[in-house]
């Protein structure tokens, strides 16, 4: 069992993810450069946040074509866990591995603050150990989740929404929607449930030194599913 953290030119949360995995949950992990393929012993991949390729063209649009993504697709196709955080989420939607797309925040501001998230399911490889409501930071300009009406119905019917922006008590409404995301969606799964994309950053809330350790449980959940 081993994690890979994929590094693109412009990634800036790669070392945070690496630290959370290696030092906080003590999992075997290595960073993999975008020009390489994932090593054969890798069983889970993290696509970290940042500004891959400077966000040129569209967020995630150029990273989609990076050589490493072929092996990320292959890993996901085998049913192994793949998680994309922030820019990683944008990359996974660009590749089509996750439904929908991330548009500019409706307020047009870059948002950088903590949010509360309702964990919609505990029966996934990412969420078994998570609390009902978790608090993670967001840091994005393009986190406004969009999908057409048919797609929205499909992902809701299939229970593919894992996280929604909510109040500290877990109430989901427009008042707690920071960026205009449809149905307050902050994180979605693929149909098979082994690929997760989320705008909030669990790796930035993985130990009390950072003020909150709710994110630790997400990495522990993946670890628990792999062992």
């Amino acid at each position: 069992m081993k994690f890979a953290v994929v590094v693109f030119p412009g990634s800036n949360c790669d070392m945070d993810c690496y630290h959370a995995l290696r030092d906080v949950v003590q999992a075997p992990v290595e960073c993999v450069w975008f020009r390489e393929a994932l090593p054969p012993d890798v069983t889970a991949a993290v696509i970290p946040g940042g500004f891959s390729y400077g966000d040129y063209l569209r967020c995630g649009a150029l990273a989609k074509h990076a050589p490493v993504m072929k092996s990320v697709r292959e890993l996901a196709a085998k049913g192994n866990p793949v998680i994309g955080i922030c820019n990683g989420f944008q990359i996974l939607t660009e590749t089509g591995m996750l439904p929908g797309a991330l548009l500019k925040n409706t307020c047009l501001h870059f948002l950088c603050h903590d949010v509360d998230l309702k964990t919609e399911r505990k029966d996934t490889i990412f969420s078994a150990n998570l609390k009902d409501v978790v608090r993670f930071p967001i840091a994005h300009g393009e986190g406004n989740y969009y999908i057409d009406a048919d797609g929205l119905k499909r992902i809701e019917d299939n229970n593919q929404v894992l996280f929604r922006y909510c109040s500290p008590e877990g109430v989901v409404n427009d008042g707690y929607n920071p960026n205009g995301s449809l149905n307050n969606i902050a994180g979605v799964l693929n149909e098979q449930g082994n690929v997760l994309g989320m705008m909030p950053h669990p790796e930035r809330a993985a130990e009390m030194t950072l003020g909150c350790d709710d994110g630790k449980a997400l990495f522990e959940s993946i670890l628990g599913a792999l062992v």
Partner: protein
Amino acid sequence: MAQAKVIVMLKKEVSDVQGVTIQQTMQKLDHAEVAKIRVGKYFEIELNGDGLTKDQLKQKLEDICENVLSNTVVEEYQYELLD
């Protein structure tokens, strides 16, 4: 060298928050006649298409538009291949 022009716009049904914000600012700038603005991207492309027919070049261009220049989940594109 063949030349192409590509325009990528958000689909009509997708809210264009940049366009709305610019339009609202226009109103405040004494340009009340501006009723709507939509923001898109414009590309000028030079294609080294030696030995390719116009149809083959069009196919290349379509592939570029579909798979790189636009995200068809939220955007639509139009292109023009110039002689």
